[in-house]
């Protein structure tokens, strides 16, 4: 009754997406709602047209039923991302400063609320470029792996998840091989 290998060692992207959806995001509601209690806390009241802060999962839900407009987080716009991309290119051994779960949040918002975002296509392509630049850097950084530590500061949760099974296993092997030189 064992879990398949890929579930044993790391989290699936869908699970990370769900965790990311717990973050609060601002919306403009189109319906009114009283202060309602949920397991994670009480949200509301919603009084259109004033803004409110809700968890992302709830905002997505309302959006799909066309009951709100989502306001993009302040890092999800063209200039900000272009700025980050320039930073990535300029610093070949450090990662630029992006929110920890930017990949999941941006994917969810682009899927559901692309009409609430300015220039969704450009955002998509910028995000893709960012991802590729960072992947190349993390690959570089992996070459310096040794049996006791690996330092790659600034990676986002999705990127960590992607390389986790790989580098955990490599470090295991390296530990076994290197053991003798310490005794």
């Amino acid at each position, binding site marked *: 009754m064992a879990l398949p290998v890929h579930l044993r060692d790391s989290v*699936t992207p869908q699970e990370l*997406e769900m965790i990311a959806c717990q973050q609060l995001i601002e919306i403009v509601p189109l319906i009114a709602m009283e202060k309602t209690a949920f397991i994670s806390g009480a949200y509301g009241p919603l009084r259109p047209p004033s803004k409110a802060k809700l968890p992302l999962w709830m905002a997505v839900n309302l959006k799909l039923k066309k009951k709100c407009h989502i306001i993009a987080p302040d890092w999800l716009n063209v200039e900000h991302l272009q700025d980050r991309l320039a930073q990535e290119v300029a610093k070949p051994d450090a990662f630029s400063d992006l929110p920890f779960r930017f990949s999941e949040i941006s994917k969810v918002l682009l899927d559901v609320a692309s009409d609430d975002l300015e220039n969704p296509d450009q955002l998509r392509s910028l995000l893709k470029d960012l991802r590729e630049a960072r992947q190349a850097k993390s690959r570089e950084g992996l070459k310096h792996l040794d049996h006791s530590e690996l330092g790659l500061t600034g990676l986002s949760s999705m990127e960590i998840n*992607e390389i986790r099974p790989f580098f955990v*296993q490599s470090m295991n092997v*390296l530990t076994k*091989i290197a053991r003798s*030189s310490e005794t």
Partner: protein
Amino acid sequence: MENDYFSVEAILAENQKIQCTFKHEIPNMGHLGGGTERERTKLQLPMWLAYVIIYSDWAEFNIPQPFGLKVRNALKAEATSVRLSNLVGAGGMWYGFGKMIMDMLSDEQASEMSEMMTKAFKDAQHFAAIGPGGAGGSGSDGLDATEREIFTLAQASAKRMKKWHEESDKAKQ
């Protein structure tokens, strides 16, 4: 790998044979193969047997060919060109085998071996790391079992990521 009693990889790695020279006479030891061992008889013994015999100091052994000088130099020159899987026969457990030998050697030889394996492993690394971006199978038949395992892990996780990114693009709208 290693001394894990239940590990299949360890069992397979232990099956490799090394050349041993007996130092003493051991009566009746050659039961299955016929004949008794005299002093200085050379034999090929599998690791799991050789381990005990060497520990009890009844024989000596040489570093087997897969780790010999020629291989070592080839690895130093260009680690990715060496086909580790060919050196130890089917299944290829070069690292597992090397680790066991290393455990039996004296300190300085062992640290030399450990350095050689570490370097070979790290250089073969980028094969696996390229997995997410590059084409599969470009060198995967030259990798030994350990490297192949890691390569598969990297490829699988990259595949899942890609799938996630592309799914649900249509599902929600």
